[in-house]
């Protein structure tokens, strides 16, 4: 494969890095007053990348034509599918930010630049074909994320979130690196293809340790139990647009990366990682559900909800089949608008002076004071709970279908029974909004961008979303097949 072909395949990443660098210079010279122009430019860059990636996903690109730089980078349909979600979610994080930050004048020109670099990192992550590429992408994303978490410099909680995220993230990176070095030591290569070949047959104890540490490091990134402790604190402390970003795009990237590592590099040893994934899946579902019950802050609540959702995604991974990988992608595609919509709704909860409201108790009687917002939020809550006819049900449905087809019936039954615990706290939010007497603290108005984004998410999650199942199914199947074709 010649250099030109490789460069063509990484064109979206090149666009992202160039625009990130140029915008950084613009930010440095023009200062914060250019922040809105930079945001728009960043959105355009993300949009351009979105449309560059889309054809590969539609065509189900796979095979040697999608491999760049001698296997270090893979621009197949699987990576493309994840990138589409990443770019869309990053765009949403850019759209909602100005209204939030401008209230106390903390909208800075670095915000869109950091989001761009984070998106670039994630884009590299999902395309990684080598442990080195994996690590570079992961760190580029993480370093941007640490800064983003602490973006409200004057706010103690935000600084705390950034610091916590950094310390624990560094620990996880250390674990991951340790696992990678063990894997390299016992297989003699860092490329997924090489690891795959070296691991065929009996697995040595050292390589098993490598596998465990790599998975542990990645579990931290997707905030799966037992590596989830940072999630509620960081989600609560980080500025809400940043939390929206954390809950959507990096989650997609980390899950896609985990899937690639598990199916591709460690594919021959599926039995070795399956039990770890099953444990993490069930533990995430239960801990996420139980943890959410006692929360009084809606961002913490959504953090536990995201832990809960990761558990369902991991059930798809645990199957180890093409159908399971496809189900994961469908789940993610539904999860992203669902979680983006929920956080946009949280952003729209403002008091009279426009200050953010985060207490769940303040939602009381929202259906009477702000009916449109309450109905949208209700649709999203029932959707997160996986109650049909809302579209969130479909994500759980395909995941459990894959599990049943892979003969993991006990896992499916336990997982779905535990989802009832989760349903309890989602309907609690509905109860507070619809059954309780109005607290009437939510008074602030929101701009059209928030309303538009919320409306799009709510419509997607409504029963109308089922009309997309056909398209979604074809795309996800193509993407999953691409993953397995390489593997």
């Amino acid at each position, binding site marked *: 494969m010649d250099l030109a072909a490789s460069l063509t395949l990484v064109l979206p990443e090149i666009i992202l890095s160039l625009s990130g660098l140029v915008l950084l210079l613009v930010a440095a010279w023009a200062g914060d007053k250019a922040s809105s122009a930079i945001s728009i430019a960043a959105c355009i860059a993300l949009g351009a990348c979105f449309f560059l990636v889309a054809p590969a996903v539609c065509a189900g690109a796979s095979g040697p034509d999608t491999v760049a730089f001698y296997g270090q980078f893979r621009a197949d349909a699987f990576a493309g599918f994840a990138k589409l979600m990443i770019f869309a979610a990053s765009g949403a994080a850019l759209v909602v930010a100005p209204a939030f930050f401008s209230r106390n004048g903390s909208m800075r020109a670095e915000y869109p630049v950091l989001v761009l670099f984070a998106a670039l990192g994630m884009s590299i992550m999902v395309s990684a074909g080598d442990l080195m590429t994996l690590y570079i992408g992961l760190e580029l994303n993480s370093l941007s994320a640490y800064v983003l978490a602490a973006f409200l410099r004057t706010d103690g909680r935000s600084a705390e979130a950034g610091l916590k995220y950094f310390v624990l993230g560094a620990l996880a990176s250390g674990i991951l690196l340790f696992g990678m070095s063990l894997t390299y030591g016992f297989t003699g290569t860092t490329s997924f293809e090489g690891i795959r070949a070296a691991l065929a047959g009996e697995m040595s104890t050292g390589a098993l340790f490598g596998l465990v540490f790599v998975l542990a490091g990645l579990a931290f990134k997707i905030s799966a139990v037992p590596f989830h402790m940072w999630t509620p604190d960081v989600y609560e402390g980080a500025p809400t647009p940043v939390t929206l970003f954390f809950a959507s795009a990096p989650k997609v990237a980390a899950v896609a990366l985990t899937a690639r590592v598990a199916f591709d590099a460690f594919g021959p040893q599926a039995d070795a990682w399956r039990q770890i994934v099953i444990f993490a899946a069930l533990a995430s579902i239960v801990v996420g559900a139980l943890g959410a019950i006692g929360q009084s802050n809606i961002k913490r609540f959504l953090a536990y909800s995201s832990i809960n959702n990761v558990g369902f995604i991991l059930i798809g991974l645990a199957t180890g089949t093409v159908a399971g990988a496809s189900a994961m992608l469908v789940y993610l595609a539904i999860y992203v608008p669902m979680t983006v919509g929920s956080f946009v709704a949280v952003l729209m909860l403002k008091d009279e002076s426009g200050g953010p409201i985060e207490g769940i108790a303040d939602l009381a009687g929202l259906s009477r004071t702000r009916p449109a917002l309450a109905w949208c939020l209700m649709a999203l809550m029932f959707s997160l709970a996986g109650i049909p*006819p809302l579209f969130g*049900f479909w994500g759980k449905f395909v995941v459990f279908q894959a599990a*049943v087809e892979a003969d993991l019936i006990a896992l499916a039954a336990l997982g779905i029974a535990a989802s*009832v615990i989760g349903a309890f706290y989602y*309907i609690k939010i509905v109860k507070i909004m*619809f059954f309780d007497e109005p607290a009437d603290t939510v008074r602030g108005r929101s701009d059209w961008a928030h309303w538009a984004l919320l409306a799009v998410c709510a419509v997607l999650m409504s029963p109308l979303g089922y*009309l997309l199942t056909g398209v979604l199914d074809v795309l996800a199947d193509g993407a999953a097949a691409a993953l397995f074709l390489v593997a």
Partner: protein
Amino acid sequence: MEGVPILSLMLLVPMLGAIACLFVNAGTARTIALAATLVDFALGILLWANYDIGGAQWQFTERAPIFAGFSWALGIDGIALMLIMLSVFLMPICILASQSIDKRVGEYMAAFLFMEALMIGVFAAQDLFLFYIFFEAGLIPMYLIIGVWGGKDRIYAAYKFFLYTLLGSVLMLIAMLWMVNEAGTTDIPTLMNYDFPAGAQTWLWLAFFASFAVKMPMWPVHTWLPDAHVQAPTAGSVILAGVLLKMGGYGFIRFSLPMFPEASVQLMWLVFALSMIAVVLTSLIALVQEDMKKLIAYSSVAHMALVTVGLFAFNVQGFEGAMMVMLGHGLVSGALFLCVGVIYDRLHTREIDRYGGLSINMPKYALFFMLFTMASVGLPGTSNFVGEFLALAGIYQVSSWVTAVCATGIILGAAYMLYLYWRIAFGVQKNADAAAMPDLSAREWAMLAPIAAAVLWMGVYPESFLAPMRADIQALDARVARVKPEGDARLAMGTVARAEAHEGAH
């Protein structure tokens, strides 16, 4: 009628009405809701009129593969037709009964119209997953109806209703996924004739049972029902008792029996045991209730137990009896809740002690109430008699013990219903405010008179209702013929007795 997707239309009308109700004021919402339900009722009559008795098993079928993994497949047989008729018949009455609702009327009407669409969808779905979606989706509007417009403890009742039914049905989803994986189709008519391995049937049956037993509800998972009924507004109770409980029975007759016949026979004892306990125990509980709605709620559990024993008798009388009890109970318990609602609207209490001697100041009301009480008891000439008699005749062929215990339930039923009627309608007028209540208004007449007519029609000429279902019930009977259990009452004259009972049924 060819080419008109009448079932989709029946789903669309209330759906559009519901969306419209969300955006208009109270008065307009009431009108829209009434109009939408009446249009749906008219469509229902059209459906019945065009239903070809003795024709194809599945009629008015529609199929549009617009989703991945399942399709928009609708179609009805006689059993579904009757249950759809019950739903569309009760809905306009429910809307009329909601006159006393004065807060958030638009949302209330929208919730009811959504509910109607989902109920029709449950009975009309011909795709396994489409059925599941409709079946589960009903939780959302019902949760809101109980929680927003319910009584004092509405929040507890709403949670209990939601979580109980959800826990019951999620396991059913896993079973459905397994079945589809095994059989390779989501088409309900195909699955009804698919022979699953006997070992797996037990598990599948239990998973479906978990869902339908809660919905039905069977003892001991019935405890959500009294709470939900007592707290729900009148119309909510009517829909809950009239139609939602029937989804459990429909599930048994559509899924458990034809899809898992071996397991059904194998676990017959479980159904019988739970039903016998339910009949006796809940009847005794009903006897000591001080709250009218609670009493009727417990009586529902007892009546539903007759449905389950009838279904698991594995013969034509049993199936027909179960269906007739379902239809009759749908009308009668709905009517009884309406009767409670009529006096609740006047005095705002459900406590039986606060009433008394109502036949003096409300003679017309007392007459209607009497008719429905008698129907609930199972007096010949009313709808419930037909069903209860057939169900007991059916079960007698299988087990005389079960019949004996269940027949006790009828006696106990007479006891608690007559006791209720006596305390409310007869005796001295001990409370001045109760004595001052005016008799039925025109609106209340319009609610009760149609149900009274239907109850009498069903009691006097049940053939109208049995005829559309006959072929389907015979098909079901043929399907379970290979596993038909040996009855304990088959003495020398058994065959003749059975033939006579059979003749009597038709």
